């Protein structure tokens, strides 16, 4: 293919720069060109073509816009006379020129584009974890889902929602749901696929309880300090978290003067889960990053 392109370029250059043509000769008119008048730069490909076509019979009597009139010397060079000239007009739909539809071809397979560095990679992380949570006297199962959007390594914004289900349900069936938003700072352990993060979120603790007389709700302010360690392979990984929370108000249910359900506002939980990352491109470089890059 390349050699055809070289021939075409050389032919065009030859035709345009020929003194006989004076540059004004019509491109489709028969023109006598001698090899002696061809510039040296063009001579080389022609020479190469001549060698390549030495064994092929020369094409004859085919007029082509840029095709010079083949003389006996040309025939000796073995130039194609069948009209398959590089710049010949052709039908794009012709099936016998598939390689010409992509002028430059597929080429060799390119190496994958380099992934942005974690500092510059913007991603959306979905975390789903479960584990026990302690509120001093009680151990309860919790499920927490969180969404973090920001840098893979650096600052993110986080949103979490948890459900804590109190197992004892004889007198009151309680479901606590802390929900909060806040920043998450994530760092990487050297160059490994292990990340650690610390967050601080503020939100509310929604307390729902089913009692004999119906369902009651309470809403209290809530803070959570999640500490996470995550191992990520590609876009999926495991997360181990210590979830500290504080909901500002203890709660006690009494029946006949006897405490039948009580929780302190402090809680700490250990949760294990999986996370999924969705890359969202490179983060915009901040001024601090630019300074670091320049240095």
């Amino acid at each position: 293919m390349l050699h055809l392109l070289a021939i075409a370029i050389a032919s065009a250059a030859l035709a345009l720069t020929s003194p006989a043509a004076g540059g004004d000769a019509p491109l489709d008119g028969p023109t006598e060109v001698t090899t002696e008048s061809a510039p040296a730069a063009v001579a080389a490909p022609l020479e190469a073509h001549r060698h390549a076509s030495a064994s092929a019979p020369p094409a004859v009597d085919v007029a082509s816009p840029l095709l010079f009139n083949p003389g006996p010397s040309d025939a000796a060079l073995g130039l194609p006379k069948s009209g398959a000239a590089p710049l010949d007009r052709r039908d794009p739909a012709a099936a016998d020129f598939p390689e010409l539809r992509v002028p430059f071809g597929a080429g060799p397979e390119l190496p994958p584009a380099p992934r942005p560095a974690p500092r510059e990679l913007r991603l959306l992380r979905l975390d789903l974890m479960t584990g026990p949570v302690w509120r001093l006297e009680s151990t309860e199962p919790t499920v927490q889902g969180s969404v973090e959007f920001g840098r893979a390594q650096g600052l993110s914004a986080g949103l979490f929602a948890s459900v804590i289900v109190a197992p004892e349900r004889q007198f009151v069936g309680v479901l606590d749901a802390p929900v909060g938003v806040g920043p998450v700072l994530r760092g990487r352990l050297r160059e490994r696929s292990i990340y650690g993060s610390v967050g601080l979120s503020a939100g509310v603790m929604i307390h729902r309880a089913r009692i004999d007389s119906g369902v009651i709700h309470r809403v209290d302010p809530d803070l959570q300090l999640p500490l996470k360690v995550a191992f990520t392979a590609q876009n999926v990984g495991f997360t181990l978290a210590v979830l500290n929370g504080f909901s500002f108000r203890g709660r006690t249910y009494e029946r006949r003067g006897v405490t039948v359900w009580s929780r302190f506002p402090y809680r700490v939980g250990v949760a294990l889960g999986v996370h999924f990352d969705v890359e969202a491109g490179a983060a915009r470089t901040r001024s601090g990053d630019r300074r670091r890059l320049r240095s």
Partner: protein
Amino acid sequence: MTRTRTLGVLLLALGGCSEDVIDLDPLDTTPVVEASVRPAPIVGGTLTITASNQAIAADPDRDVVYVVDLNAQALRHAIALEPGDQPGRVVVGADGRAHVVLRGFGGLATIDPDAGVVTSRQRLCPEPRGVAVHETDGSLYVACSGGALVHLSSAGEELERRELEPDLRDVLIVDGAVMVSVFREAAIVGLDGARIELPEGPDDAAHVAWRTWVTADGEIAMLHQVASKKPVPIDPDPDELPPGGSAYGGGDDPCQFGLVSAAVTTIGSEGVHTTTLMNSRLTVDAAFSPDGERVALAVPGAVRPEPPSDDGGGNRLNGGVGFEDFGFLGESGSTLRVEPKDGTECFTFTSDGEAGQVTAVAYDTSGRLVSQSREPARLLIMDDEWSPPAVIELGGESRFDTGHEIFHRATDSGLSCASCHPEGTDDGHVWEFDDLGPRRTQALDVGLRDTAPFHWDGDMETFDTLMSEVLAHRMGGKRQSPERADSFTRWVFDQQRPAADDGRGDAALVAQGEALFAAHACDKCHDGPALGGQRTERVSGVAKQVPTLRRVSLHPPFMHDGRAHTLEDAVRDMIDTTSPIAGSDADVEALTAYLRTL
């Protein structure tokens, strides 16, 4: 557990956090109703049947005596008494006259039922309770709560007055012998000093004899309460709470005995036989059927007024009342209950509360069951257990009252306030409380206003605290709205009764005792208008609320743990432990004479 909780409380304190305490006990917000004349606690047993099949029903709430012709099912007379008379027990003499004790008046009224008039009334003693007619001569015996037994001729002349012991209740004449029941102790004393005490079980003891009568077979029958002697939890762990019950028991299983149960004991030639009722509530009157097979029981509970029905009335309810309900006692605990005489099951025939607030029962000469309701005032006549009863409205102003209702309404434990404070006083029982030790039930009729803090340990700063802790938490009652709690408090404070003094004591001895009261520095702690009740003092190393001495002689046993069975014992105890000077027997006699006037 405690350490962890302490740590938690400390963390809460450090964090400046509050605690949200949610009480799961139901809250009663029913509007307050206070009767124009606030009714006194139920005394029960105010109905009797004459030989001519007339019912004579005393209404202590309205100060009226009704005469009802049971054959004609018609009200013949509503005999108005003096306000505050509080008519109680009724007895009919051989001459057809009815004699009614007037608790409030402190005497006896004689009524001609046919004419519907009061033929005489006379003052006898503070709080007469029981009355009986001696068949041989038609003379009357009247028992007074202060301990006097007054013998009157058929003409009303006082023949004799005996001082037996405090807390007399019903007069019995068995084979010509006069005997009197003792209310709190559920005992029977004779004029000759004989004393019949009901046998105690390993876990319970008989007390509070609501009604004692002589059966057709000549036996003595007694409706009384049975109180537990087991340790009573006051702060149980959640696991120790019975499902649906409270610290004082009760719950979803009705087939059980409560801390206080109703019981019927018969005493006869075949010995003493006691039947304790499972799933029982406050029961204030009983009657045996003529065949002796069944016992009808008045379980007043509390009945709230219902809006008038649209069915046009008439004198027979359309199936709303009767014994079509075979099951457990309802929430109000107000019912007419009929049980086999010699044994009960946890299922019972009940009248589902529409019989009203039943306070008295009797069988008429035809064998029909007659019950009296105090609110609304009505009589029910039942031919049998399955037919709708005939209803005879007695009329009169409503005496429904929120304070009265709360006092008598059954709680989840089966107890009502009146269970341990019968007639608005006390049951005389010494309870063994976990973590507290023995505590005698405190009396309510001594005037509780301005005696806070309450309870022997003074740990109930206000009456609201006491209601919340005892009525709701321990007993399993409803919490009360502030308005209802205020109404109840006022009602309880209004239950102060007159002094025990009948004016017949030795005035000189009483004066000497009053002087000794000061000499022994008793008035140092028993001070103020209530002679105590306003402070907590340490005696023998133990801090206790100083009790008021009003009506003290009427409330044996004495001291917080009931260790003094007589007033004399209590005086000696106090002199030994608190007086700066020694006390002689003469001092004790004088002091007790003085205390009996308070």
